[in-house]
């Protein structure tokens, strides 16, 4: 029996298996960046409020 050529499915499978966590980590990067910006802004406002 000949082994079928399923290489394209393999590529698609690993594109999904690496692509999904990559997108998830990218969402973390955006979330962290936005939170750090918020934190800096809030700390500045807090310092001004104290003055």
């Amino acid at each position, binding site marked *: 029996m000949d*082994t*079928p050529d399923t290489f394209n499915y393999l590529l698609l*499978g690993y594109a999904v298996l690496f692509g*999904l966590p990559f997108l998830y980590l990218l969402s973390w990067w955006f979330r*962290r960046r936005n*939170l750090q910006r918020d*934190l800096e802004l*809030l700390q500045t406002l*807090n310092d001004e409020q104290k003055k």
Partner: protein
Amino acid sequence: MFKSDRVAQILNLVTAGLLLVATAMVFFYAPTEVTMGAVQRVFYFHVAAAWVGLAAFMVTFVAGLVYLRTGKHLWDQIGHASVEIGLVFTVMGAASGSIWARPAWNTWWTWDPRLTTYTIMALIYVAYLMLRQGLDDPDRRARFAAIYGIVGFISVPITFFSIRIWRTIHPVVVGGSGDAAQGTFHMTSPMLQTMLFSVFTFSVVYVCLLVNRVRLEDLAERVEQLKVRMLSA
């Protein structure tokens, strides 16, 4: 463990190294399976991703129990982080399985008992995240989420045992497959080693993500607390 930068950095490096080795084993160490060809290599990370999905929901179950007992906020953070990570791995498992199924079963999807219970389980945990979004009071949110995480966990053993209880075309990795199973293959020693190493690697990836996700949750809570303090001042 969750607060230390050094622990997180070491864990990130170890995880990246393990992932490289596991990928190399999948592509260069495990032999090509004769009846399915190259696509069978999807199996190693598919099993590992599905395993981590189920394990992550079990962690949420345990975290829920511990939170209700101790009231420590960290356990709520762990439960929440674990559901989010578990869902990513569950989707990875479903998507890679679907891609493997196309040449193996001649269809992308079928409402087989495993696939159906797996989908229901995923939706239960999507609802967990929606429930959290709908509650503003942190204590109430943590309590509700803990109870939901405990009750929702019933879907996990049902999903795991579905291929052993019902007649299904989904192959069984541990233990023998049923008569109706399609896409089964004889697992050689290098294949087994690659699968076990992939499962181990993905488990470490999960721990690494959990530590980093809890740290992100900490940052979000610091921002939230500062906002509340400023509004009440």
